[in-house]
């Protein structure tokens, strides 16, 4: 596999585009100059720190344990991110951790169990990160939509409960709707992949000099993994939220509001 590096000079050169953005912001009085500069600086520092840490974790003689620890840390940060983005969902942090762990567990087991990628530091961390990054927005969406669906259809759910239906049966049509909403963007993305925009992994591989067909193979595997993990996290979170908002006495939680 050929590799390429753009070097620090290349990074500096790409800052020209940031300068263009700042100039545009100034000329149009968007007031975004500081934010753009701060975001750029922050992104660079974050990536530099991550890069340095990854350098240690991914070095050929480092123990795989470090890679797994890295994945655990990513899951925790992912859980915090999800909980932070959907504050209205009670107890979402641990639920998100559970969902992301299940999705990562299943995905990594498939990836390495079936030998799709070799089990090495350089494959574990990026694969896990890719899945997490894509699963977060659908996890947030699944959590929020589940709460909204249950709140908006409180009357229907209580009618079903009052007819003697069990809590999970009474909320099922609405959880189903929330899950459809949460995973649809990823399905749409999968359908149009390559037609509108080249996906991230493939873009990276092509830029790094990998042959298109080889890049397509990797990208296909990645897309399928992402879709799988998105559905897994959404289902776990949707069911978890529903479970949390139902009492053992088959009532809707009073804190759900109306």
């Amino acid at each position, binding site marked *: 596999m050929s590799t390429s590096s753009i070097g620090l000079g290349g990074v500096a050169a790409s800052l020209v585009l940031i300068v263009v953005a700042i100039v545009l912001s100034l000329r149009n009085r968007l007031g975004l100059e500081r934010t753009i500069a701060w975001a750029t600086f922050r992104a660079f520092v974050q990536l530099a720190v991550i890069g340095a840490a990854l350098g240690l974790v991914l070095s050929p003689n480092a123990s795989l344990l470090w890679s797994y620890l890295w994945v655990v840390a990513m899951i925790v940060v992912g859980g915090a991110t999800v909980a932070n983005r959907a504050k209205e969902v009670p107890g979402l942090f641990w639920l998100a951790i559970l969902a992301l762990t299940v999705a990562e567990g299943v995905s990594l087991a498939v990836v390495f169990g079936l030998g799709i990628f070799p089990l090495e530091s350089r494959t574990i961390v990026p694969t896990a990160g890719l899945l997490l990054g894509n699963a977060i927005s659908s996890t947030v969406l699944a959590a929020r939509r589940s709460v909204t669906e249950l709140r908006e259809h409180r*009357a*229907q759910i209580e*009618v*079903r409960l*009052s*007819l*003697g239906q069990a809590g999970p049966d009474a909320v099922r049509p609405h959880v189903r709707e929330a899950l459809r909403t949460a995973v649809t963007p990823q399905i749409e993305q999968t359908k149009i992949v390559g037609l509108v925009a080249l996906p991230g992994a493939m873009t990276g591989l092509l830029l790094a000099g990998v042959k298109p067909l080889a890049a397509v193979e990797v990208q296909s595997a990645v897309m399928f993994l992402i879709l799988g993990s998105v559905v897994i996290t959404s289902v776990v979170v949707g069911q978890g939220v529903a479970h949390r908002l139902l009492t053992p006495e088959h009532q809707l939680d*009073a804190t759900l509001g109306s």
Partner: protein
Amino acid sequence: MSGVHRLLRQKGRLRGSPGVVARLAAPPGPGDPTALFSFDGIQVVRAGRQVLDIDHATIPLRGATGIVGPSGAGKSTLLRLCNRLESPSAGIVRFRNGDLAATDPLQHRRDVAMVFQHPVALPGTVADNLREADPTLDDAAVEVGLAAVGLPADVATRVADELSGGERQRVSLARSMATRPHVLLLDEATSALDATSAGRIETLVGTLAASGIIPIWVSHDIEQVRRVAEHVLVIIDGRVAQAGPVDQVLAGPRPDVRRFIEGTMS
């Protein structure tokens, strides 16, 4: 002449002679054979607000009961305790002298059915709606259920959501009755309907009551309670302000109850 005085002069509607239904000062405890529901030491707190505070009250085994009071007084909450859509923060609700918290809520709800204020159509046809209550209903059984609420058989295939409010509420009633309950809770079941539809629901429930179903009406309308119920619990600010046979309560309302009645009649 004020509405109270007009009401106070109308007597003789009571059948049977049930005793005082809610003895506020009575010692709490099981074993009241005349009670369908009894409430002891009930506290309901929601979001830091005390919604209900009932030392002791009962709903009698015989005859329809009306739970009446100003909006926000806690009437609906009391009704929801009766089929366990809500549970009290403290206290014991008893149903036929058994602790409600110890029963299977799903079984209980099929025995103590509920009709809500706003007629809710579940997705699908009217027949689908009845089958949400009992999936084993065949077309003939659906037809019988609809006939019991005065709806023709061809309504069964119509989309429930496209019916008028009054028709939807009759479908709700038929749906609730499909679990073959012995008690029917009505939470302001006519307040979202026009007068004709409301009257029809009252008549239908009266027919059900004659066949042995015990209705419990929540209403903000004392006139409606006078028409449909023999016993009344007046709830004001989360407490039972007065309880007993409707005529007795109307004949001697306590000051806050009198104020409530006058407020609704003016």
